[in-house]
C-alpha cells in the first residue's frame, strides 16, 4: 500500500476486503454445533504448532531466547551509566587517577570524597577514595570531567543493596591487576572523541 493510499480515509474508495465471517448461531443447538465443530477440526494446533516449533528449537536446536538473569546478562551500551570503574594505565599497571579532585568538585550530589598525600615517589597519591552510591545519581559528570579517563562508568547496574547508603572504595572499583588485559577503553561520556587527533593544537618543540 502506498503512503497516499494509506492516508486516504474516505471509506469506500479503498480496496478493502470484507472478512468471510460465518453466520453467528442463534439457537442453543447451533451454538453447540459450532463448538463441537471447532473442537474436532484441530484449529488449536495451527497456533500451538508455532509454540511447539520454538520449543523444539530452544531445547534441541540451541536457539533459546530467554536470558537466564542473573546467570546471564544482556550486553549494554557503552554510554550506559552504571557503577563506576577505576581504570589503570595499560603500560605500567599503575592506576590512572592523579588525585586532581575534579570529580569531587563537580559531583552535584556531593557523593565523591577523596584524600590525597605526597608519597615517597614525589607523586600525589590518592590515599582514600569513596563514592556513596546511596547518593550518586549516575549523572556521569565525574567521568566526563576526569582529565585522565581514570573514573568511568562500568557495566555493573545492579545497585540495589540491603543498606540505604552503600559506599565503594577505590579498590572496589579499580581494575584488578590480573584483569588488566581485559580492561576495556571507555566509550561513553568524557571519552576521547573519534576525531580527537584533528583537534589537537601542536606545540612547537625546540628540539
Amino acid at each position, binding site marked *: 500500500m502506498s503512503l497516499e493510499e494509506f492516508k486516504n480515509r474516505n471509506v469506500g474508495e479503498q480496496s478493502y476486503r470484507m472478512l468471510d465471517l460465518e453466520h453467528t448461531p442463534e439457537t442453543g443447538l447451533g451454538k453447540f454445533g459450532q463448538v463441537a465443530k471447532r473442537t474436532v477440526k484441530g484449529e488449536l494446533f495451527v497456533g500451538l504448532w508455532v509454540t511447539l516449533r520454538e520449543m523444539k528449537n530452544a531445547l534441541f536446536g540451541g536457539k533459546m531466547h530467554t536470558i537466564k538473569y542473573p546467570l546471564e546478562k544482556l550486553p549494554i551500551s557503552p554510554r550506559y551509566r552504571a557503577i563506576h570503574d577505576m581504570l589503570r594505565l595499560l603500560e605500567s599497571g599503575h592506576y590512572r587517577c592523579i588525585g586532581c579532585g575534579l570529580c569531587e568538585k563537580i559531583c552535584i550530589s556531593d557523593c565523591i570524597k577523596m584524600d590525597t598525600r*605526597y608519597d615517597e615517589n614525589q607523586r600525589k597519591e590518592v590515599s*582514600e*577514595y569513596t563514592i556513596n552510591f546511596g547518593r550518586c545519581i549516575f549523572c556521569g559528570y565525574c567521568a566526563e570531567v576526569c582529565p585522565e579517563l581514570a573514573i568511568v562508568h562500568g557495566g555493573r547496574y545492579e545497585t540495589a543493596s540491603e543498606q540505604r547508603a552503600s559506599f565503594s572504595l577505590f579498590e572496589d572499583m579499580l581494575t584488578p591487576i590480573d584483569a588488566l588485559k581485559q580492561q576495556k577503553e571507555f566509550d561513553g561520556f568524557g571519552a576521547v572523541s573519534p576525531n580527537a587527533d584533528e583537534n589537537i593544537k601542536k*606545540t*612547537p*618543540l*625546540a628540539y
Partner: protein
Amino acid sequence: MSISIKINGKDCEGVAGDTILNIARANDIYIPTMCYLTKVAPIASCRMCVVAVEGVEGMILSCQEKAINGAIITTSTPEIEKQRKNIMKLYDVNHPLECGVCDKSGECDLQNKTMEFEVDKQTFTAKEQHRPVQDWGFISYDPSLCIMCEKCVRVCTEIVGDNVLAISSGGYNSTIINTKLDEDCSNCGECMSVCPVGALVSTDFKYSSNAWELNKIPASCSHCSSACQLSYEVKADSIFNNEKKIYRVTNNYEFSSLCGAGRFGFDYANNNVTKDEIAFDNAVEAFKKADTIRFSATITNEEALILQNIKEKYDINLVCDEARGYQKFLNEFNSITGKSLYSGNLENISKSQGIIVLGSRINDDNPMVKYHITMASRRKRARVIYMHPMEDYSMKEIITQFIKYEVGSEEGVTALLARTLINSDDENIKNYLDDLDIGNLSAESNIGEEELADLSKSLNRKSGFSLVIGSDLYNHPQAKNIAKLLGLIEIHTNFEVLIVPPATNALGVSLICDLSDEVNGYTIGYNTEGDFVLSALGNTDLDIPALNQQEGTFTTVDKRVVPTNVGLEYHGYVLNDIANALGLNNKYTIDYTPHLPIKNGYKSIKFDELPDYFDSIGNEHRGYLLDIVNHEQNLDLDEISTLPTYDGSVIYNCNKGTQFSAFTNKSEYLSNETVLKGSSQFATVAKLKDKDKIKFTLNGVNYERVFKIDTLMKGTIAINPTFDMGLSSTLVSSYRFSQPKLEKMDS
C-alpha cells in the same frame, strides 16, 4: 601634594610620588600584573603592567612610574593587549601541565592570567631543562614551575631580612637558589606565601588538599603581640573523620606578612573535648572559693574582661605574671608622657631612618617588629642601633651599630641614651640630665662615650625615629625609673617609642585588668599553674578552648584591637559558661566586646561590626585603633641607683625563632629544640662541657636542660628557652637575665 590624572577617561586623585598602578588600584581600575607585590619595591620584571601615556612614546611600566599631574593614561589598547598576551605565552613556555596535581591550582596567578588572556595555543618554544624538585625543609621548591617573578627573593631580603634566597641568573636557565641550606633560615614561609605559582609550597601541606576545598576562616595570630592577620584553612580531617582540621594558614600576603610560628604553628587546638559537667561544677565551685586567679596573657580581651568582672564581683586577686611588669612599666611611662599609650607603631618603624632597639632580642621576641626594621633598613637606609648585652647573629645584616652593655645596667643605659638624645630647654630636665654621673654610668654599663657620640652623629640629618623597647626592661629591678626616662625621650625628642608587649595580649590585659603582684590563698590557674587549673593545653581540671577555637579580640603592639574567629569548633565549656554560672549574664563571650573599658581607649563597637580587611591599596581595616586618652602627668624622676653587677655566667630567658609559648610547642611542625645554648666562653666560666646535663631553678620553675655550645654566640650569657614548660612557661615574672645555680646532673 595632591595630583589629578585621567585613567581610561576617569578622573583619579592621588598624591605626588604615587605610582600610576597605585592610583589606578585606589580607583578600582584594573591593570594586570604578574610580578608586582605591593609590600615590596616594584620588581618590574614581568612588563604586564604597561600602559600608554598620551604624549609619551612607547609603553610605560605603571608599577614603577610615578604619576605626573594631568597625565592622560590608557590601560588597554590593542597593541598593549597583544604585548600582554605574548608575555603570557612566554610565561607558559614549558610550564608543566600538571595543574591536576599542583597545590596552587585554583588560586594560581599563572592559571588565572592564562585564562584571562585566552592563551589557547603556544607559538614560542624553548628547550626543556632537567630541574629536579628541591627540599628546603619547611618548603619545597620545584624550579620547573617557577616563573622567575622574584617576589620570593624580594620578601626574603626586603621584609624578612634573612637574605636566604637569591637568583642564579642564566637566561632561560635562571632559578631561585637557597644560599643558606646548611644554616637555618628563620622558616617564616614568606617566600612560599607570595609565590604566584606552585613553585614554592609547604612540604607538609603538599598534595594534601586542593585550594578550593578549604574553608578560609579569617583570624588573628595568637602567638605574639603583633596578632597578624591570617586565615585558617579548614576541611574535614579525612573521609572517615568529619572533624574539621586546619590544613594550613594563609594570609593577605599582598599587604601583610607572617612569621614561621604564625604560618606553621597552627595545630595547637584543644581537640576531642566534650562537656564534662562534673569538671564544670568543680570549676564553678573553685571560682566561688578562690582567692586568686592566675592567668597567662595568651588570652582574648573578652576573657580578660570576664576575669576582671569576676574579680570585681567576688573580690578575687588577679595575677598575670607575663603582663604585670609590663602594666607597671606602661603606667610609669604614661605618668611622664601624660598619654595612655606610647606613640610608636609598626608602620612608622618601617618608615623611620633612625631606629634604636633597646632591651630586646627582637628577632625572637617579636619577628614582626624585626620585619619592619628590615623594611626601614632596606628602603630608607635606616640607621639601626641595637643595644643589648648579647649580639644577635640573625640581625647582623640590618644592624648598623651594635652597642653592648653590661647585664643589669639598663637603667644607666637608658639614662645615657636620654642624655644623648634629649635636647630640651626645660630647666628641670636639663639639670637632671646634667647631674648624671656620666663617667660612672659609662663605666658600669660599659658603653663608651664615643659610642654614644657615634650614635648621635649617625642620626644627624635623618628624619623619622623609632625607639623599640623590649621585655628585658619590664621586670628590671629599676623598671620604674627606666620607664620614666623613656617617657622623657618620648616627649622631648622626635623618637616614637614602641613598648613591645611581652606576650600575645599583654597590652590588652594591662589595659583591662587590675592586676595584683602576689599570689595568695586558693588559686585558679587559667592556662597556668594553680590549685585548680583550666587550660587549653589539655589534661587539666577543666579544658578550655585554645585561641584558634575562640572568637574575640586581641590588643596588638600596634595599639589596634583586632578580631579573631573560630577556626575549629570547640565542644566543651568556655570561660563565659563559668561566668554565667557565677551570675554574669552574657550569652556569648563576644557580647563583652563593646564593654571593653572606654576609659583606657577601647571603643564601644560590637564584635560583629568590627571590620577585618585590607583595602585595594593595602590600608589596614582590622578592628579599630585604640584611642589615646590623656593621663595625669607626673614629672618626678628618681636618682639613678647603683647599677647591679652580674659577674660570671648569666642565663637569659628567651624563646628562639618560631617558638613563643606552650602553644607553639604543641605544634608538631615547628622545631622544638630545648637546649641551653651558650658560647664556649660561657662553658668555661660556668665550668660546663658540650652536652652536659644540668638543672636549675628560675621563678620557682625547675629546668632540666642539656647544654650546647653555639659557635655563633659570644660572651658569658646563655639562652634558656621557656616555651616547653607547659603551664609553668608563663611564670616568668622576673628580670630576664639571672644567675641561678647550675647543678650538673649525671647523664
